[in-house]
């Protein structure tokens, strides 16, 4: 018989390394037509970080994402970066890029200010223009300013900067300290169907609400969450490296190491929790890792809700679930008083 259940899993997760320095540096070069090139030492590993970082640089310079070209991942040409790890790219590298773009923008403002007859601190960069705050009618195209800066003033608008999240070391005895600059929060809910004769668990639906501060690119945030859920489902139900008694892996291949296929994925609804972190670039934090964190918890709680068994050892394979169901049935039978 198919039994349905619902479960919830809630989590918190930090951004960046635990106490240890994990800096990023960046350089933003504004070209003479107002487009820009961004140099970063981070590596695109699929999450779309280069697009998100371009969006951050673009926002700071008041241009569009497409106006930014990103050069990355070459130690000879790009500045230091701790790398695509610890959900830190948007927050740490993003902050470095925002600061670098700010420095390049400063040059543009200094060049534009006399042309617009104001002080540099009265200017803002919006819609590919450098304009006077609260008096946007007075403006210059960013391209004109960049050209002026480079060829007339002899000041190429290039900015470099670095960022390292501020932390406070942990007390070795008590662990008290401020190991991370910021955290994100998330909840996922799972609906499952459990076949109580075979123990097979079918995750049919998941909802996920994740905080990532400002979502720089909601489409890519959704992609991270959906991908994290698939990894979470594998962790919850299927995946396990198995070894023989000599310590050699029994399933070192994708035939026998069971990871989710398209058929194993549920329908997913993703919500991004509105939040703004003042320490992040435009309020952003990160989303990479947390997406895979609460899935197994939500699924196991849904199994518990469906058939009343608590799986304490992952993965919750069909075999384990069935064994737990049988044990539960046996122990319940034992407690039935003889008189009844």
């Amino acid at each position, binding site marked *: 018989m198919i039994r349905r259940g619902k479960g919830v899993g809630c989590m918190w997760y930090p951004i960046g390394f635990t106490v240890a320095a994990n800096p990023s540096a960046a350089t933003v070069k504004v070209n003479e037509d107002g487009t820009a090139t961004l140099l970063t030492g981070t590596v695109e590993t699929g999450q779309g970080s280069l697009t998100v970082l371009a969006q951050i640089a673009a926002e700071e310079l008041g241009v569009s994402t497409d106006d930014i070209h990103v050069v990355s991942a070459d130690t000879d040409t790009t500045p230091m970066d701790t790398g695509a790890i610890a959900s830190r790219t948007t927050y740490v590298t993003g902050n470095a890029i925002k600061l670098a773009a700010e420095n390049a923008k400063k040059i543009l403002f200094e060049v534009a200010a006399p042309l617009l007859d104001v002080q540099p601190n009265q200017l803002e960069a919006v819609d590919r223009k450098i304009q006077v705050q609260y008096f946007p009618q007075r403006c210059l195209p960013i391209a004109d300013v960049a050209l002026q800066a480079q060829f007339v003033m002899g000041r190429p608008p290039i900015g470099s900067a670095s960022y390292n999240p501020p932390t406070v070391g942990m007390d070795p005895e008590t662990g008290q300290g401020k190991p991370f600059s910021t955290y994100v929060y998330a909840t996922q809910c799972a609906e499952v169907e459990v076949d109580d004769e075979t123990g097979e668990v079918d995750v049919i639906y998941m909802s996920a609400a994740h905080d990532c501060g400002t979502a720089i690119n909601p489409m890519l945030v959704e992609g991270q969450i959906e991908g994290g859920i698939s990894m979470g489902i594998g962790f919850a139900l299927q995946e396990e490296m198995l070894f023989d008694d000599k310590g050699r892996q029994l399933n070192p291949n994708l035939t*026998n190491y069971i990871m989710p296929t398209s058929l194993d994925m549920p329908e997913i609804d993703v919500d991004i929790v509105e939040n703004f972190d003042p320490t992040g670039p435009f309020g952003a934090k990160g989303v990479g890792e947390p997406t895979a964190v609460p899935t197994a918890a939500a699924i196991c709680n849904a199994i518990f809700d469906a058939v009343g068994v608590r799986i304490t050892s992952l993965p919750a394979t069909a075999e384990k679930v069935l064994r737990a169901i049988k044990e539960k049935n046996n122990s319940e039978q034992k407690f039935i008083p003889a008189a009844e």
Partner: protein
Amino acid sequence: MKPFDFIQPTTIDAAILALAEHNPNVRILNGGTDYLVELKHAAQSPGVVVDVSRLQDLRGIEIIDAGLRIGAGTTHTEIMADPLVKEYVPAMIDAAHTVGAVQTRNLGTLGGNLVTCVPSMDSGPTLLALDAKVIILGSKGTRQSSLTDFFIGPRRTSLEPDELLLEIIIPKENLGKPASFIKFGLRKGQALALVNAASALWVEGNKFKDVRIALGAVAPVVMRATKAEALLEGRVISEDLVQEAAKIAVGEAKPIDDFRASKEYRNDLIEVGTRRTLQAALTASNIKN
């Protein structure tokens, strides 16, 4: 892959000649979804590989006097799309559908699945439940074999190195026989069977007739649960009887304990699989009538 000599005959006769000439250092390649994997891991070259994937005569599905003939080189995809299969042996479509994924089914052949003879093969149980025969051609001539005789052990069949599996025939009397296939794997897509099962039966009046139960991945080769069949034969159909047969089937199987599943769990699946396929075959029978 270790180097080998490669022959691509254009006729069946040429293929048989090539097999005879290079016997025993010769292997047949068709879809390759299993054999190429084996070759990639092999420590030794097979010598000569004879590719029969171009032989059109090995393919095709048609009704002949003896029953439904399926060429050994017919792919799982072709089986799934075939109107004759759909009409006469729809359980084969369910079985073919569970073989690997689309890419595997487009290359993999029914004959290849049988010849490879892994205990968890997905084509075996349904064909065994329908008493399918195989036709084999060798340099000494043609022979016919039941699947029970054909399957010898894990990755071992009665096929000699110089023989070619030509076709699979589902006997005329079993065309349209209500049948059902089920497979339990570790996930929904691209799964290897932990246990698979097929049942075929006629209903005469309110009684079971000619019940066949076949189980896969529970013994060295795909097997019949003959005691369970015998229990049902000629008896009045009831849920309890089906349940009892399923329990008996468990006793007949000899599943292994491995990292994919324990023996105990496989036994549980045998019981559920036997029961569910019998029930589904009964339902199919009701719909038919």
